[in-house]
């Protein structure tokens, strides 16, 4: 009788489990553990404390088996982005500011039609990719809600350098309504907020293909194997010469994707360059301090460490 029920527990692992099966397994394991006599647990000496552990182990095995089958099905068409050689990837590598400047242009002309960047202001561009006057001119292109006038009517005003980048939609509902129900995410922190970071953003922007055989893509959606699930609500946005770069760089799709990704990396980490520069300084000076501390410890301890205790036997 016992061996039959052990087989039942083992069989559980093979079957794609659901809660009902996990419960069956629990029951089987419980009976197996208690030797087929459930009464023994409550009345036994010392065994009652162990049975809940076993209970939990069987339940966990069932749950894991069940979920893993489901997630394999969902992730079947997901493609992980390759690792690209970003010029800012090294320990001491700054962001390419010329690329940030081009990337802002791509954001402004392409992305900003749907995506907001609520945590970046025009003043943040000063000393990074634009001069103060340029940032002022950029800000003045936009209108913001102003103070109410004397009659209490809402007014608009010209953008100021201290304003954040404008939101293309008045609220999330309007944004969803305009985009087939999908909310375009805010891009301020998108590079840090996605697995794969720069590589993922670049891959998404350049990864549009015709859907393979058997993949259903609804009207208004697009196929992109780098997007989890493979079907993305954002159609391809970057095409050859979508923007015209002021520095004469050819505006290929990969060039624009690279520039806007660098720009978004800067937006996620405006402190990126300072972080690396100061980190270098700190590591250099603290390693010198560590050497000095080690030397001084040796000096202070030298008296104790160089003591010698000699024992002589009584006769010598």
């Amino acid at each position: 009788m016992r061996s039959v029920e052990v087989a039942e527990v083992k069989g559980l692992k093979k079957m794609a489990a659901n809660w009902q099966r996990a419960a069956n397994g629990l029951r089987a394991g419980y009976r197996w553990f208690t030797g087929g006599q459930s009464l023994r647990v409550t009345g036994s000496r010392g065994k009652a404390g162990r049975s809940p552990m076993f209970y939990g182990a069987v339940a966990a095995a069932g749950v894991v088996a069940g979920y893993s089958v489901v997630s394999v099905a969902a992730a079947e068409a997901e493609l992980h982005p390759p690792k690209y050689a970003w010029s800012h990837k090294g320990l001491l590598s700054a962001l390419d500011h010329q690329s940030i400047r081009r990337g802002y242009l791509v954001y402004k002309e392409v992305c900003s039609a749907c995506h907001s960047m609520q945590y970046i202001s025009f003043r943040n561009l000063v000393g990074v990719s634009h001069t103060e006057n340029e940032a002022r001119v950029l800000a003045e292109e936009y209108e913001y809600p102003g103070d109410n006038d004397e009659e209490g009517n809402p007014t608009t005003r010209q953008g100021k350098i201290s304003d954040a980048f404008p939101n293309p939609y008045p609220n999330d509902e309007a944004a969803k309504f305009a985009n087939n129900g999908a909310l375009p995410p805010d891009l301020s922190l998108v590079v840090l907020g996605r697995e794969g970071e720069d590589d993922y953003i670049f891959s998404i922007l350049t990864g549009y293909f015709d859907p393979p055989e058997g993949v259903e893509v609804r009207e208004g959606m697009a196929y992109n194997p780098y997007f989890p699930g493979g079907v993305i609500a954002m159609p391809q946005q970057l095409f050859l010469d979508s923007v015209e770069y002021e520095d004469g760089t050819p505006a290929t799709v990969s060039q624009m994707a690279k520039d806007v990704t660098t720009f978004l990396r800067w937006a996620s980490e405006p402190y990126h360059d300072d972080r690396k520069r100061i980190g270098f300084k700190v590591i250099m000076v603290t390693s010198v301090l560590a050497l000095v501390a080690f030397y001084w410890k040796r000096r202070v301890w030298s008296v104790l460490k160089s003591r010698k205790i000699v024992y002589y036997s009584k006769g010598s």
Partner: protein
Amino acid sequence: MYVRSLVRTLQRCRSLTAGGVPAAAFRGATAAVTTTRGAHTDLPVPDFSAYRNSYADKPNEASSRGELGKRAAAYMVLGGGLAAGMVPTKDAIVGLLSTMSPSADVLAMATIEVDLSAIPEGKNVVLKWQGKPLFVRHRTAEEIDAAKNVDLSTLRDPQADDARVQRDQWMILIGVCTHLGCVPIANAGEYGGYFCPCHGSHYDTSGRIRKGPAPLNLAVPKYKFETDTSLVVG
């Protein structure tokens, strides 16, 4: 030999203090042991030459000269380490203190730029600056004359017009009545300056209190003229 002498001393103490306090006997015993121990002249000195510094490896020469140099080098290292340690210490202190200063977004909002070319003569413009109304008034020649030709002794809060303006034609004020904080109305009141509708305080064209309950003149913020047509307040 050592143990034997200890035993002998104990015996001697006991006989001396026969029946006395044991603690006292023990104290005597310890003292006796140290005196009996004697010199180590019977033991050979181990060879430490493998551990000696080069300046101290000659037993018949003074090591003080070389030792001083060694110490100088050691303190040079320590002093260098302390000097290098000053950098992170200073940066940590500056970093802590700088958390008390306003952040960049606050500083960015702290000033307002006013385009003066858009304000015609005789007009008072109300702007919002740091949440408060800001008056920028382009004064006419008569208003300037009226503000200048006032006997200061007749004023409640005596202040010359020259002390309140940088350029005579531009009067910059914070538009908050000094009585209870209403916003006064421009070009109104008995003195042609400002009139507070809440409790009837009259201010002149220099923003000075002339009549009514308010105790003080309208406040003048810090400002400077960037160019002839551009004013920066704050």
